């Protein structure tokens, strides 16, 4: 676990001097973001249990990876999240309201804010990686200084699309950042059984592109590494593969039971108590005199309010309707779509009674 790049160790001690690289403001923002997304995550699990949301994929434990990487991005950069990367989406500008809507199965749940490029959560594993090659390629062709960052998991590294994406990005030197959160598991399958290789990062050598293995629970390491990759990318030097070593404390999704495949209590507890990303930044900020309990309380209150407001907004958002299903299949609807729409909007009570 130690052969990775780390800046802020688990005890909250700085291993290298980053003061002129990361401003205090940024650090505070990092902390604030991690706190809010963690609260969001817990709220979502709660909502799912109450039946107010569908199956949900939690990310607690992975906050540093997602928040640090997304915070490094600029507004014009393209973000390709998986189903587990709502923290990253929120940080890049997605509203919590919309993320709630997504998990409520609402049709409007994967719309990007119009001044951002936040792609819908990608469900089929690794498929988004090639899209991020394409969007980055287009940015490059247009001369826009933007990167495309694709999130993926350790399991995704086994799919063919991972390979094709890295190779193509390497060949065309697209400004793509491949950001792997190696949380040790693809659902139940541990990385040791997932892959013949010991790390994900080493796979970069198969494409002669840089591969960096970092402590994914160290938000400074994450942020600095992504910043460096962005520089390379926009300088025309091509893609970078980043492997952020992290852990999900909870279940794969709310439909999953991690006790079936790992010593959940011991392992999750160990990660949480020894390597938690939020706690370590908090310790550092406190030690640096940037944070205290008073601020913490204020933040927690604000966060709870924000989440509550987003939830209220989501729950009072106009419900998806049958007619929504027929929109946006094509720019101009086909005759099938038009005609079937008429059939679909017959109220249920009016059916089967024509006689």
């Amino acid at each position: 676990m130690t052969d990775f790049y780390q800046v802020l160790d688990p005890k909250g001690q700085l291993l290298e001097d980053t003061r002129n690289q990361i401003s205090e403001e940024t650090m505070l923002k990092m902390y604030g973001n991690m706190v809010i997304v963690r609260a969001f995550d817990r709220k979502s699990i709660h909502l799912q249990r109450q039946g107010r949301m569908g199956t949900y994929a939690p990310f607690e434990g992975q906050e540093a990876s997602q928040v640090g990487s997304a915070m490094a991005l600029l507004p014009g950069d393209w973000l390709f999240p998986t189903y587990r990367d709502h923290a990253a989406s929120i940080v890049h500008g997605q509203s919590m309201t919309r993320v709630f809507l997504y998990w409520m199965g609402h049709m409007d749940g994967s719309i990007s804010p119009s001044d951002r490029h936040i792609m819908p959560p990608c469900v089929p594993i690794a498929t988004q990686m090639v899209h991020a090659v394409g969007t980055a390629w287009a940015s490059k062709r247009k001369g826009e200084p933007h990167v495309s960052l694709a999130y993926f998991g350790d399991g995704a590294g086994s799919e063919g699309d991972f390979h094709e994406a890295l190779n193509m990005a390497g060949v065309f030197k697209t400004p793509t950042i491949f950001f792997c959160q190696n949380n040790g598991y693809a659902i139940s399958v541990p990385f040791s059984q997932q892959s013949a290789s010991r790390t994900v990062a080493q796979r970069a050598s198969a494409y002669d592109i840089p591969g960096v293995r970092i402590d994914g629970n160290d938000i400074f390491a994450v942020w600095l590494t992504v910043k460096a990759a962005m520089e390379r990318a926009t300088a025309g030097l091509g893609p970078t593969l980043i492997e952020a070593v992290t852990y999900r404390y909870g279940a794969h999704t709310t439909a999953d039971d991690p006790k079936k495949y790992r010593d959940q209590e011991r392992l999750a507890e160990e990660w949480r108590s020894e390597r938690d990303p939020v706690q370590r930044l908090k310790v550092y900020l406190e030690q640096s005199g940037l944070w205290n309990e008073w601020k913490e309380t204020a933040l927690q209150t604000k966060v709870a309010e924000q989440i509550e407001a987003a939830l209220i907004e989501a729950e009072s958002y106009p419900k998806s309707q049958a007619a929504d299903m027929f929109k946006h299949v094509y720019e101009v609807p086909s005759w099938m779509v038009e005609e079937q729409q008429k059939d679909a909007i017959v109220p249920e009570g009016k059916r089967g009674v024509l006689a």
Partner: protein
Amino acid sequence: MSRKLSMIQAISEALDQKLADDNRVMLLGEDIGVNGGVFRATEGLFEKYGRERIVDTPLAEAGIIGSAIGLGMNGMIPVVEIQFLAFIYPGFEQIVSHAARMRYRTRGQYHVPMVIRTPFGAGIRGPELHSESVESFFAHVPGLKVVVPSTPFDAKGLLISAIEDPDPVIFLEPTKLYRAFKEEVPEELYRVPIGKARVIREGSHLSIFAWGAMIRVAEEAAQQLERERGWLCEVVDLRSISPLDRDAILASVKKTGRALVVHEAHKTAGMGAEIISIINDEALLYLKAPVKRVTGYDVPVPQFAIEDDYLPTVARVKQGIVETIQY
């Protein structure tokens, strides 16, 4: 002897019994080992048969299906679980260009006795791409068989037939029915033949052809219309999508003169069209009305908040029946 089992239990039992029965049987898939499968179809099998036979694979469907092809060619009987139907696409080439053709290309020298099991269909409030029903893709591929059970009894018997079948079988399990109900399932190994439909409700006014989760919708519609109007609709569970049981289709429609197909899949180029064509070919003159299709719409399966609006409902099926009978 028999006891009441849910469909998932029946599937699990079929796997267990074939594993016990034939040492060549191997299960491959994501999370099927220690975890027992995301729907628990393989629960307990890892402990019983070990990691050599119950294989947690890497997350790589082309790799899983492709290596299963090799396993099958070299004496094993691979039973692959794909986590959800849409995740079969990365392995689509392996299925279409290899599994379906290996016997043909080698003139019978090698064959692929593989089963690919996968949950399919909507109605479980799943996220995107967890609710597809694209059975017609596979029905268009010569060399494959495609099977869909709608009851625990059929699930066990059809799965055993599929595992014993020397050719590749796509075995589609209606997710919605996994735990929907239980019924008596014999304890022993038994077979339900592939390619044979089952009339689950006799009738004389109209024939409903359906499969999987739509059977329950069809039955309910038929029952209601019997109560409400005294119409007797015959419900035929096709069970095999490829090959279709043409004789059963024709026998029923020749009797009733009216027919309706219900499927979850998109209407255009779905299996409803093939069933209509079979009727057109051989029973056109028996038809008193056009054969109706009540199907999923020609739109991507929507997010789950409105998936019920996408799926054929009892009301839509009833409306179709009324229109067909009063044509």
